[in-house]
C-alpha cells in the first residue's frame, strides 16, 4: 500500500511542478499585466496546491498533514483577493489592457464616474 501512495505523491509533485512551470511561462510570455495575472494567480496556486497535497499525503504526522491543508486553504483564500486588488490598482493607475483585448468593461464605468466627477465640479 505504501508504494502506491509513494507513486501517487510522486505524480502529484511532478504535475504540480509542471503547472507552476506553465504559470511561469505565462507570466513571461503573455502580452499585458491582466493576462499575466490570469496565468499567475490560477495556474501558480494550483501547482503549489498540488505539491502541498502531495506533502499532506506523504506526511506520517497528522499535525503536518493538517498544516499542509491549512496552507492550501490559506493560499486559495488570499490569492484571488490580492490579484483582484492589484488589477484594480493597476487599472486605476492607468495601465490599460493590451489592444487585442475584446471587451474592456472597466472603461465604461471609469468614463461614467469621470463624467459624474466633472458634473460635480
Amino acid at each position, binding site marked *: 500500500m505504501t508504494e502506491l501512495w*509513494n507513486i501517487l505523491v510522486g505524480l502529484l509533485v511532478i504535475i504540480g511542478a509542471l503547472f507552476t512551470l506553465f504559470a511561469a511561462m505565462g*507570466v513571461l510570455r503573455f502580452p499585458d499585466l491582466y493576462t499575466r495575472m490570469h496565468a499567475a494567480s490560477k495556474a501558480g496556486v494550483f501547482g*503549489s496546491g498540488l505539491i502541498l497535497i502531495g506533502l499532506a499525503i506523504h506526511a506520517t504526522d497528522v499535525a503536518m498533514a493538517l498544516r499542509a491543508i491549512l496552507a492550501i486553504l490559506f493560499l486559495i483564500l488570499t490569492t484571488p483577493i490580492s490579484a483582484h486588488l*492589484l488589477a484594480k490598482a493597476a487599472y486605476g*493607475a492607468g495601465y490599460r489592457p493590451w489592444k487585442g483585448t475584446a471587451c474592456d468593461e472597466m472603461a465604461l464605468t471609469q468614463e461614467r464616474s469621470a463624467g459624474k466627477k466633472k458634473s460635480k465640479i
Partner: protein
Amino acid sequence: MNEAATGFLEFATLIALGILSLAFLLTVARVILGPGVPDRVLALDMLVAIAIGFIGVIGIRTGFTIYLDIAIALGLVGFLTTVAFARFIMSRRYRQDYQEISARLNAKRRP
C-alpha cells in the same frame, strides 16, 4: 516493488526541483524585464508561490516537514506585500491627480 516506488519518489522530487528552478528563473526574468511596477509585483507574488512549492518538495524529499510553518508564514507575507504594493500603486496615481489638479488651479489663478 517497495524499493522501486521509493526510487520513483526520489526521482520525481528531483525532477520537480529542476522544473521549479526553471520556473523560478523564468519568473525572475519577468521581474527584470517587467515594463511597469504592477508586472514586477505580480512576478514577486508568483515567486512566493514557487517558493512554497519548493518548501513542499524539500519536505517530501528530506522529511523536514517542519519547514511547512515557514511556508504558511511566507504565504502570509506575500499576501501582505501584494496588498501593500497595490495601495502604493493606487496612492501614486492619486498623487499624480493631485499634482494635475493643483497645476490646473495655479494656471487659472495666474491670469
